[in-house]
């Protein structure tokens, strides 16, 4: 197990290195000038700025410097916020995105399993039809629509009631998190519901469930130990990438609800060609994604003993 974990970790490091390298060269080949601004720069000031960010060096030297700093965990200074270090930006804003993401995943994972199991139990009956209809909506409607609708609903609700039930936007308390995280998790919840339903259906008719029944096990034990535990496997598999996707993909939701998450910097940096922030967020998120996949793989072995044998 330990050897397997170490092997996976090493593979992960190589992956992150390739992500960093690919992003670095892709970023530098994007047309545009990161130093350009509304006011034209004099040559002298331009030269100073280039020296400050090391842009006066040949590309391969810049790459070498970047790798050296990366090893020390230093991403440099932002281009757009000239007195903030990229490390600080990640340190200050990632916890916000992570908080939002964890809550969204909790909503999505627990809700997905619950609804999925329900639909399987009530296959082709009214609850199944209703939930699956909602699932199709959840999968096909993008999160910014839900975000805008959710916010509008809150405004109407607060207006009708005459007092603030839940805040319309902002950050700081649990009340601020509820609606955004629900909105953010909705798509994943719908996806997980479908996944759970099909895997549950497969298992309800399987041999080992029939065996368990004929053994005379209680319905409760069959459900928790034989059905749920087996049906949940595919859900766990996608959970890893889903956590990464939700934590990084919160850009629109963060914008609509005025949440100071990292997603905003991730997207704006690309628009503004903020080289250091692009590199910092991409490498960080890349490492995060790789790490989550490894965690899920290890978790998988814990849930399904068959995987452990390898």
């Amino acid at each position: 197990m330990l050897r397997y974990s170490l092997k996976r970790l090493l593979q992960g490091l190589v992956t992150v290195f390739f992500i960093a390298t690919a992003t670095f060269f892709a970023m530098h080949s994007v047309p545009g000038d990161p130093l350009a601004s509304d006011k034209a720069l004099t040559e002298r000031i331009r030269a100073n700025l280039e020296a400050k960010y090391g842009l006066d060096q040949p590309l391969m030297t810049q790459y070498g410097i970047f790798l050296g700093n990366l090893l020390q965990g230093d991403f440099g200074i932002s281009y757009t916020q000239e007195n903030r270090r990229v490390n600080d930006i990640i340190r200050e804003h990632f916890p916000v995105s992570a908080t939002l993401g964890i809550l969204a995943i909790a909503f999505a994972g627990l809700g997905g399993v619950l609804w999925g199991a329900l639909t399987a139990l009530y296959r082709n009956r009214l609850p199944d039809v209703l939930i699956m209809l909602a699932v199709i909506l959840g999968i096909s409607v993008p999160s910014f629509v839900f975000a805008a609708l959710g916010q509008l609903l809150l405004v109407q609700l607060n207006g009708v009631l005459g007092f603030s039930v839940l805040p319309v936007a902002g950050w700081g308390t649990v009340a601020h998190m509820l609606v955004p995280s629900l909105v953010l998790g909705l798509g994943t919840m719908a996806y997980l519901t479908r996944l759970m339903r099909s895997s549950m259906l497969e298992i309800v008719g399987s041999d080992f469930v029939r065996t368990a029944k004929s053994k005379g096990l209680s319905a409760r034990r069959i459900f928790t130990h034989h059905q749920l535990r087996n049906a949940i496997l595919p859900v766990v598999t996608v959970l890893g990438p889903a956590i990464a996707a939700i934590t990084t993909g919160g850009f629109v939701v963060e914008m609509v609800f005025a949440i100071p998450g990292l997603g905003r910097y991730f997207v704006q940096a690309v628009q503004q060609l903020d080289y250091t922030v692009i590199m910092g967020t991409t490498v960080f998120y890349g490492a995060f994604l790789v790490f989550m996949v490894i965690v899920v793989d290890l978790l998988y072995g814990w849930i399904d003993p068959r995987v452990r044998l390898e």
Partner: protein
Amino acid sequence: MTKAPNPSGESAFNRSAARQLALFGVAIVVGLVGLMWGLNLLASLTATAGGVPPAVDVANNAITVMLTEEPPQLDSTRSTDQVSGIVLGHVMEGLLRYDDRGELAPGMAEAWRIDEGGATFHLRADARWSDGQPVTAHDFVFAWRLGLDPENASEYAFILYPIKNAEAINQGELPVTELGARALDARTLEVEFERPIAFFDKLTAFSTYFPVREDFYRATEGRFGADADQLLYNGPFALSNWVHGQSLRLDRNPHYWDQARIRLDRINVGYITSDPNTRLNLFKDEKIVMTGLTAENLTNALEQRWHIHRHMDGSVFYLDFNHREGRLTRNLNLRKAMILAQDPGELVYKVTKTPGYLPGESLFPRFLEGVQGKFRDEHPAPTYPMDLQAARAHLEAARRELGLEAFPPLVLLAGDNPVSNIQTEYFQAVFKKNLGLDIKIDRQIFKQRLAKMTSGDFDLVLAGWGPDYNDPLTYGDLYASWNLNNRGRYSNPEYDRQVRIAQGAMDAQTRVAAFAEMQRIIHEDVVIIPNYERGVAYVTHPRVKGILRRVVGADTDYTYAWIEP
């Protein structure tokens, strides 16, 4: 739908499973409550605990506002953008300032004298920093040297160029100590000019001219302006808390000299988002005291029967031609044909339909002052009413002069945002329909558009300009042949001569005449096709009065606002 055969016992089993699921559901709710409690703890560690106060907080004599983005740069010597300008305008003060009527008024300086050769400023005795120490003339000299120091790489260094030796210092030809600004004593600042300048008083209200105290600056070790405690304040308010990307708190600065004029005790910036609908929702929910309106949410605002205000922000937008050698747009007849084939009124009222916009007529917007009244009243801008016959005649003349069989497609460079997308489509349509000219739209992200503008990789470009200071020269010198922001490289010795006159003359009559001459040249030479002057429609909380919108300086300015009892 066929039902699966239901052997006996199956339904009992399902019922039990459903009970299980119900239990599971209860467990989820309990678990989530626990999780959220934990997260709340986490959030209170990473951010300010507690919610954001309402729009109007009478008990604390405070209001809550929002910003469209995180202020990128609060180091006044390097700050360039509007959002940082809003914050700086509340927490800092220059030698002079703009007061609640928009007039230039004494700030850190209580008296001053400006003549052709230089200026002398006498600082007030009660001018203090937020730590209680006096603001001295040295603080201004230090800030200006910093602004010009090439190592500091300030993009707004040019605004200090009227001071003697400033440009040479910024080019690295002279040491910063050669700057023509000296502290005669702690309260007397003497400035020597490079050449006579008629509007130096207005410049001193600009953020690059704000003071910076040397010992504090050195102590921040390169992080000056990065956090609330990495700044020193001499304005009406002081930043007491700054959670990046989330909120700022501006508290009354007890050391500010003019306490009587400041009526609010606190300004909360509670939200930072660029989403206009979020802002409107926050306003509806009485969470913020002011919000701008866009074309999409204007009807929504009208339905609420809110009182809608309008403010012209001083920005002008236009089609800039590429005047470089070898470009077709260098041909005057082609430019004339194009300006005659379009109509800014149609663009503004029928196409973009953005609330607050006015059709463009001149490079010089309507707010600028002339000798006595407004410049544009004293010198109405000549325009080209749409005239297709004349346009086609000019196009034919251009075709002959250029020796072309037919015109190749012209490249129109533009940014990628909703308003400019509509604009480019309008021009593509009118030039095709009215002149048979093909326009190729080159839509680029902001940085790439700027890069292409600088290298001259366009025939036409959607451009705009906002004022740096309240004088027509901020627009007029844009088309001087030496100006780096003259991206089309328009060059005309007569125009340059007029710019020199406006730069050097002290008397209003001569200067305004020079600006009128520039306006005429731009019109006759069709240097640009004016599109529109930008205006903003906005709504304010009915109980909050005295919110100011400014053309230069902090826009929006809550400095002198108050809550009506």
